[in-house]
């Protein structure tokens, strides 16, 4: 891979327009058979697909879990990362169906509006959801965390680092996704000391309104549409607008690292407290350095691993693997300075094992 990349780089300027056919993308089939004997064996292997909602380091960790499951269970699973959201996701799933698979795990980009499409897919092959659920569809089960609980966990981290309260701002890529909405509500409810809600009946606060409660004020939730420069500018503008901003909470993996970059440039590291989700390297490094208080990890490795395991069991006719309530919960891990080194080592080990 390295040599081909170097050759590619060297050849880039002269052949700018002659490259269309070259390149190995993330959607090429995994574990290619190397010999004739192996390819015969591969024919009998069950084939699955693991579809993400975008391209992100988060999904690379999940992908490592898929690869590990492939080895453990002797199956094949394609990992598909749609670069442009819903339209790409639908296109990729359709092509997987055309090629033929024994089951698909999907993280729907827009659960509410994809029900029809997901039902159509579920009519052809077993479908499970992961990361973000589509409870109204005919998916067999959901593998993931309880995003509302995870939000409450992040809220607790905020209260830990800001015991006397203050103004906090939330940052996220998109609000259309169910997991963003549940996570956001969990954080708000926890910070404002409200009673616990359930995923089945979740009342949501409207966007664009200040929410006071106790010592805290949740100012707003700013979206960036998965655009990193915009994410950083949103954090900067929040610090401009609110000189007394006490905390910034990044709901998606890249949000807290962008908040940290903005805080560094503003000389406000440590002054504005940051709480994160997920485990980008910049986040973990930020926790080690004491610049980020903590993060809530959803353990995406197990999204990959357990999704494939469940699909394999379903394909083998073992429907008992499907939880009665349709929810296979992956526990969250709260990462603070005390356990960050250990967590990072473990993460690296898992990623290496799945490579």
């Amino acid at each position: 891979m390295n040599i081909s990349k170097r050759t590619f780089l060297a050849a880039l300027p002269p052949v700018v327009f002659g490259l269309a056919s070259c390149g190995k993308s993330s959607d090429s089939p995994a574990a290619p058979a190397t010999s004739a004997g192996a390819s015969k064996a591969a024919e009998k292997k069950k084939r699955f697909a693991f579809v993400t909602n975008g391209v992100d380091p988060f999904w690379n960790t999940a992908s490592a879990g898929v690869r590990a499951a492939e080895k453990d269970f002797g199956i094949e699973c394609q990992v598909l990362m749609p670069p442009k959201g819903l339209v790409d996701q639908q296109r990729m799933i359709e092509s997987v169906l055309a090629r033929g698979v024994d089951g698909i795990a999907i993280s729907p980009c827009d659960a509410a509006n994809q029900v029809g499409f997901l039902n159509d897919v579920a009519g052809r092959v077993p479908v499970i959801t992961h990361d973000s659920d589509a409870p109204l569809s005919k998916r067999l089960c959901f593998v993931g965390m309880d995003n509302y609980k995870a939000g409450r966990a992040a809220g607790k981290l905020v209260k830990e680092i800001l015991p006397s309260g203050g103004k906090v701002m939330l940052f996220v890529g998109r609000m259309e996704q169910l997991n963003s909405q549940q996570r956001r509500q969990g954080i708000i409810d926890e910070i404002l000391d409200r009673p616990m809600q359930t995923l089945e009946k979740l009342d949501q606060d409207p966007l664009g309104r200040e929410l006071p409660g106790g010592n805290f004020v949740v100012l707003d939730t700013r979206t960036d549409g998965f655009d990193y420069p915009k994410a950083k500018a949103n954090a900067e503008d929040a610090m401009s607008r609110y000189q007394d901003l006490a905390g910034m909470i990044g709901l998606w993996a890249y949000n807290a690292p962008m908040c940290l970059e903005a805080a560094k440039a503003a000389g406000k590291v440590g002054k504005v407290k940051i709480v994160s989700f997920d485990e980008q390297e910049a986040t973990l490094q930020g926790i080690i350095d004491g610049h980020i208080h903590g993060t809530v990890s959803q353990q995406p490795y197990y999204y990959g691993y357990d999704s494939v395991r469940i699909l394999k069991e379903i394909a083998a006719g073992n429907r008992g693997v499907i939880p009665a309530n349709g929810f296979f919960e992956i526990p969250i891990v709260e990462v603070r300075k005390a356990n960050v080194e250990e967590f990072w080592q473990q993460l690296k080990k898992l990623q290496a094992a799945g490579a």
Partner: protein
Amino acid sequence: MKKLLGITALLLFIIVVTAIRNPDFLNGYNLQNLVRWTALFGFISIGAAFVIITGGIDLSIGSVVGLTGALLAILLTKNHWPVPVAMATVLAVSLGIGLAHGLLITKVGLQPFVVTLCGLLLYRGAARFITGDQSQGFGQQFEGLRRIAVSAVPVTPTFGIPVPSILLALVATVAGLLLHKTVWGRHLVALGGNEVAARYSGVGTDRIKIQAYAICGVMSGIAGILFSLDLNSIQPSGLGEFFELYAIAAAVLGGCTLRGGEGTIVGVLIGTALMRVLYNAINILGIPTHLEFAIIGAVILAGVVTDELVRKIANRKLG
């Protein structure tokens, strides 16, 4: 300069309204951020302007930003190339891309829209390929190098002049002199106004066009370097997306016409500043982010309509 009247008035109007509604808009920290973002986007807007003045278009700017940003990170952190060599390579790649565009448009006779649309897809794909679709960054290393994007020369305790804006000032001065004070610049404008007439007058239209695309390529490369250093996190599938549209919008707001033959560097800088001030004002005024595109679209449309009306009235008075 008459053409810039409307847009300058609009820029001042938004600044004044935002500052009245929230005085924090004028605090040093916010102004410094505004100047920095304007500078970062200024490079691609100037690049776009050169191409637009020839009557062409470059839709690949954002993808070149993504490719060069990712390439710089790989060369420095994975291949451990020395900084000057990595920088020179990245700029050479962006120059090569610009030259390729120019050659395909002039010598093969392809339409700029088609060539650069293919480029948009090609360079985005190339960025994702060379990185294996993994986010890139400079980590804790290269803090010194990153200063060319994130540091500022202090003026007051809260306000400093961001280094990218100093770089932009230099580049804009050179670009302005090139465009307005040299024979080459006059030929560029003439070619955009009427290519056939310019050719019959002895202007080497192909050569100038190729050079314009090369300038746009290099500007995108410089922006790619600065954006990647500024963010310290480069998403190969996302960095730079839609930047070509921001650049084109800024150039057009600043007085370039898509028919070619018109445009000033000062205007382009004002256009870029207007775009960034709008984004900033929306956050500072606490307007929900989902209204952002709608507001920016509406304000720009209002701006160009006002501009056109002011010009018509002015022309009628003159006539």
